[in-house]
C-alpha cells in the first residue's frame, strides 16, 4: 500500500475488505511521520498513543460488525490552532507553548464520533497570520514538492502532511487564503466553506468576521467526505448557521447540470507569472470542453480587496489577541520572578510571547481602531467590504460559479519574501472570498517548473455542492490529482 498515493476512499474500502486494519494503517503513518517530519516540519506534535488507541477501538467495532462511517479508522491531521482536549494546542505561537485545552473543538468531537484517528497537530503560521508557513514559533514548514520552498500558509503543516502522505486528510483554517494557497502550492484539493457552515467552537480566534475551518484532501471526494463530517450548525457557536447539510460526496459525483461559469478578468493581473496564467487558461478550456458555458466577468472593486482585508484582519486580530495578557493563561513573565507593575506584566509577556508578524498586525490593527483613525481606516474598510460583497452578488446574478487562479505564482523559496507587504500580496486572489463569506475550493490544475498550480472555484453562500460537482468533473477529465512529489528528494 503506497501511502503517498492512498486516498481516504481507498483506505476506507481496504479496511472494509479486511486488507488492512486501522491499527496497521495508523502505525504505517506514524512510521512515515518519523521518517519525513524532521525534513518537512509538518507536525508540531504527534499523538501516537491516543491515535493507536482510537485505531484499535475502530478495529474492534469493525470486527463486531458495527456500521461505520467512511472516515472510521482514517488518520487525520489537525492544524494546531484547533483545540484538542488534553493535548497541546500552540496556534504556532510561543504564547501558547504549554497550553493544554480542557475541551475538544466541535469539529474534533465530530471527527472522533465519525471514528477518525487524530494522528497529530500540524504546524502553522502563528495564530494563522501568514501566507507561507514561515511565521511559526516552531520553525518553517517545508514543501514536499521542493523542500527549499514554502508550502504556503497559514495551514502549512496540514497541507505538507497530506501532500507527503503523512496523513490521509487534514483540517486547516482559512481566514484570507490559508487553506486554498497551501492547497495550490502542494497540489491538493483545499476547501474554504461558507462562513458559518462549520462550527468554530474551539478554533483559536484570529479574525472573527472571516475565520473558517476548512479541509485538505488528495481528491475532491476525500475533501467532500471530510467536509460532510464537520459541517453543520452548532449550539456552541452562535455564528454557525442553521442550513441543511447536503450530501457532498454524492453531489460531487451525481450533480451533472450544465453551469454558467464566470472567469474573473481582474484576477489575471499584471505581474502574474505568465506560465501560471497559461496553465489556468488551459484548465478553463477543459471546463468549457465539459459543456459548461464560460463567460468573462468583472468584479470592479477587486483591487480594493487586499487593502480592505489588511485593515479588517489586523483590527480584529489586535482585539482577539488582547486576551493574551500574561495573567490568565499563555506565556507570562509572572513565572519568571520579580515584576514591578501590572503594565510590565502585560507588555513584557506580550513582547516575549508573540512573534514578529503577530506584533505587526496588533500594531496595525490598534492603529486602525484608534481614536481619530477608526473612521478613516476601519470603517472605510468595512464600507468597501460592502461594495466587494455587492460585486460578488452582481456576478452571481449572471453566473453560477466563478473561476480564478488561486495564486498568481508558484511556491516561493523559504526566506525569499522579506517585505511584509509583498507577503500580503500572496493573498490577492483569495481574501475577497473571505470578506464576502463565500465558499471556494482550490484544485490542482497543472505544473510550472515542476511546481503545482491551483485553480480557484468560488460559489454563492452554501453552494459547496455545485463547487464539488465542477471540481469532480474537472478532476475526472485530468490527472493532476494523481501527481505526487518525489519523496526520495525529501531529505
Amino acid at each position, binding site marked *: 500500500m503506497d501511502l503517498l498515493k492512498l486516498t481516504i476512499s481507498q483506505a476506507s474500502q481496504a479496511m472494509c475488505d479486511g486488507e488492512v486494519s486501522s491499527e496497521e494503517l495508523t502505525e504505517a503513518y506514524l512510521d512515515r511521520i518519523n521518517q519525513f517530519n524532521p525534513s518537512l516540519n509538518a507536525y508540531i506534535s504527534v499523538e501516537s498513543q491516543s491515535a493507536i488507541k482510537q485505531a484499535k477501538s475502530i478495529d474492534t467495532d469493525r470486527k463486531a460488525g458495527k456500521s461505520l462511517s467512511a472516515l472510521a479508522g482514517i488518520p487525520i491531521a489537525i492544524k494546531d490552532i484547533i483545540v484538542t482536549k488534553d493535548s497541546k494546542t500552540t496556534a504556532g505561537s510561543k504564547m501558547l507553548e504549554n497550553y493544554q485545552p480542557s475541551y475538544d473543538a466541535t469539529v474534533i468531537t465530530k471527527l472522533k464520533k465519525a471514528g477518525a484517528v487524530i494522528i497529530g497537530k500540524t504546524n502553522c503560521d502563528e495564530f494563522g497570520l501568514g501566507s507561507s508557513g514561515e511565521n511559526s514559533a516552531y520553525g518553517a514548514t517545508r514543501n514536499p514538492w521542493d523542500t527549499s520552498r514554502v508550502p504556503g500558509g497559514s495551514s502549512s503543516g496540514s497541507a505538507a502532511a497530506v501532500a507527503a502522505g503523512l496523513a490521509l486528510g487534514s483540517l486547516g483554517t482559512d481566514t484570507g487564503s490559508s487553506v486554498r494557497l497551501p492547497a495550490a502550492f502542494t497540489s491538493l484539493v483545499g476547501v474554504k466553506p*461558507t*462562513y*458559518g457552515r462549520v462550527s468554530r467552537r474551539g478554533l483559536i480566534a484570529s479574525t472573527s*468576521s*472571516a475565520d473558517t475551518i476548512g479541509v485538505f484532501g488528495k481528491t475532491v471526494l476525500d475533501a467532500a467526505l471530510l467536509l460532510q463530517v464537520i459541517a453543520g450548525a452548532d449550539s456552541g457557536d452562535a*455564528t454557525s*448557521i442553521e442550513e441543511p447539510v447536503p450530501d457532498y460526496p454524492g453531489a460531487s459525483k451525481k450533480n451533472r447540470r450544465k453551469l454558467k461559469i464566470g472567469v474573473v478578468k481582474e484576477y489575471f493581473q499584471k505581474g502574474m507569472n505568465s506560465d501560471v496564467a497559461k496553465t489556468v487558461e488551459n484548465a478553463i478550456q477543459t471546463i468549457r470542453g465539459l459543456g459548461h458555458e464560460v463567460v468573462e466577468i468583472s468584479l470592479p*472593486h477587486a*483591487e*480594493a480587496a*487586499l*487593502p*480592505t482585508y*489588511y*485593515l479588517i484582519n489586523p483590527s480584529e486580530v*489586535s482585539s482577539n489577541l*488582547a486576551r493574551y*495578557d500574561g495573567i490568565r493563561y499563555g506565556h507570562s513573565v509572572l513565572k519568571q520572578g520579580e515584576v514591578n507593575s501590572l*503594565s*510590565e506584566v*502585560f*507588555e*513584557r509577556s*506580550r*513582547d516575549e510571547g*508573540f512573534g*514578529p508578524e503577530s*506584533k*505587526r498586525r*496588533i*500594531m*496595525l490593527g*490598534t*492603529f486602525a481602531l*484608534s481614536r481619530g483613525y477608526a473612521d*478613516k*481606516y476601519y*470603517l*472605510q*474598510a*468595512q*464600507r*468597501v*467590504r*460592502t*461594495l466587494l*460583497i455587492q460585486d460578488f452578488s452582481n456576478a452571481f446574478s449572471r453566473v453560477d460559479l466563478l473561476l480564478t487562479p488561486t495564486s498568481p505564482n508558484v511556491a516561493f523559496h523559504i526566506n525569499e519574501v522579506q*517585505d*511584509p*507587504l509583498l507577503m*500580503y500580496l500572496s493573498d490577492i486572489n483569495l481574501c475577497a472570498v473571505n*470578506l*464576502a*463569506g463565500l465558499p471556494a475550493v482550490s484544485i490542482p490544475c497543472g505544473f510550472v517548473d515542476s511546481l503545482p498550480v491551483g485553480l480557484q472555484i468560488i460559489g454563492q*453562500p452554501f453552494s459547496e455542492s455545485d463547487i464539488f460537482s465542477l471540481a469532480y468533473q474537472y478532476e475526472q477529465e485530468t490527472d493532476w490529482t494523481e501527481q505526487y512529489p518525489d519523496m526520495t528528494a525529501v531529505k
Partner: protein
Amino acid sequence: MTDQKFNIEKISQLARLGLTKQESKELEAEFGDILKYMDKLKKIDTDSTPPTDHVLGSENITRSDQVASQDSKLIIKQNKQTKNYQIPSVRTLWTS
C-alpha cells in the same frame, strides 16, 4: 490617510505591547509602505454605502432586552456610616 505620522510609541502603549528599540524602528519603517498601500481605499466613494456588519446579513436570534421598571430609590440605599451606596446583588434583584 497617511498625513499624520504613525506614532509607534503611542500605539504600542495602547496595544500593551512592549517593543524593543530595534522592533519599533523596523515597524515604523514598514508601516510607511503598508499605510500608503491602504490609501487606495481613500479614493473609493463610499458616501452612500453602509459598513458591513455580517458577511451574510445574519441577524441575532435572541430577543431584545426587556426593561423591568424598578424604583431606584428602593434599590440603592446609602449606608449612613460609611456614606457609600449599597446595591443588592444581581441575583437578589433577579429573584425578588
